[in-house]
């Protein structure tokens, strides 16, 4: 039995399909997305599973071959990428970042086109869009905007907490 579990785990962690999720506890992999379904095997805490779809209260997880199993969604947690791949690093680097003057001074940039031209016709609007030069200064500002890994990670945690409250509401909220 232990060997079977181990083999399955190797298969589970070697496939890069959709999203990697971590097991929160010792979780059961079910044959169908139903609570009463037969348990195929169990996976210990902290293992990575490849998940495809949410079907109701279950995550669809990749098993050996073309098989899929199901895990209760509360048993899995979102796993942030610890490291980007070589290609991913290069893709991120391909978007050059620029700093252009004092960014904090800019709160709102009004459109010059909208106030001075007739935008009632869609064709006119498209012509203005195509004939006006692009404002790269504004593009560089959004490109320079840094994403903090911790704040993105915090999103997942807060959402899980909100769901956890729905599953087991605190005595005061009853």
């Amino acid at each position, binding site marked *: 039995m232990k060997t079977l579990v181990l083999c399955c785990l190797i298969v589970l962690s070697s496939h890069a399909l959709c999203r990697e999720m971590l097991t929160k506890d010792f979780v059961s992999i079910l044959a169908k997305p139903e609570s009463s379904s037969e348990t195929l095997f169990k996976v210990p805490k902290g293992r990575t599973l490849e998940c495809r779809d949410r079907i109701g209260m279950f995550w669809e997880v990749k098993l050996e071959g073309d098989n899929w199993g199901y895990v209760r969604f509360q048993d899995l947690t979102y796993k942030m990428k610890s490291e980007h791949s*070589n290609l991913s690093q290069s893709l991120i680097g391909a978007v050059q970042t620029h700093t252009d003057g004092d960014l904090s001074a800019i709160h709102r940039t009004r459109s010059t086109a909208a106030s001075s031209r007739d935008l009632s016709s869609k064709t006119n609007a*498209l012509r203005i*869009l*195509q004939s*006006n*030069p692009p404002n790269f200064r504004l593009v560089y500002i959004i490109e320079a905007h840094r994403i903090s890994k911790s704040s993105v990670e915090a999103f*997942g945690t807060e959402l899980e907490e909100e*769901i956890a409250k729905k599953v087991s509401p605190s005595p005061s909220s009853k």
Partner: protein
Amino acid sequence: MTRKRSFLCLFILFLCGACYSYLKKNEEFLSENERKELEAYKREVSIGRDMVGRLFQFYGAYFNDKVLSYVSDVGNYVAQFSDANERRFIFGILDTDSVHAFSTPGSYILVTYGALANMKNEAELAMFLAHEIAHVDKKHVFNALPNIEKDDLIDVQAIDPLLKKRQRNPGTFTLEAGEQISRYLSGAEGPGIGMVRASKVGLAILFHRGMSAEQEYEADRFGTQFAVRANYDPYALRNFLTRLEKNRNSVDIKLLETTHPPLLDRIRALDEELQRIHAQDILAAKGEARFLRMMEKLRR
């Protein structure tokens, strides 16, 4: 002596670590296929940057650091659950009351002030952004660029009186521009008029003729899946579209309606997808408190 050895070992380990991280980030160590993908992506970014620059020039930009960070974080969080999670998505806010969002090649996503102001919770924002992430993921705009249509580009020679004598047949112009875009996209031609023309055709697709109804339904479907994987309420996009339909007289949805299938049809198609994923059984979050906290800062 032992201390010296330990120092030496640590130093060697440090050097190895530095070399490894250098190699990981260096483009020279990409495989042939990865290098091709990177070059194609760079062309995408050039087109996307030009399109976004023109949209900003046209609408103006709404800059509020906290709101922009929030939109960016929600978008990047959902994008982690998409099939394009290797990319870096860049988000911006357009200063217009029209309810809309645009995605361009190169993973740029722009949402309008009007759209944000009409949302009720974070799940709606996540779904709205996930719809655009799905367009990027499926390369809907990028793949449509070489298929140029008659009204997509202004033929400068045809409208300039000085060049009027050299006016060409519109059919020839379209064919020539389409070929030029294809050459640029395939990497046979460097950045130049091909890139600018690709950007302008991209804007015509976003602004004028829209994507096909099938592509929009596909983006709704995949967007819902991405956001549901991220633990967001599966009904959020449906609720948002229903509210827009209900308030159609007071909300500016003209552009949304001309470039997308009718709202009621989208709601119907979403219902089928929600049924498929057993949405009624999905226990999910709306992120309402965090969204409302953030939207208090959404002031003009």
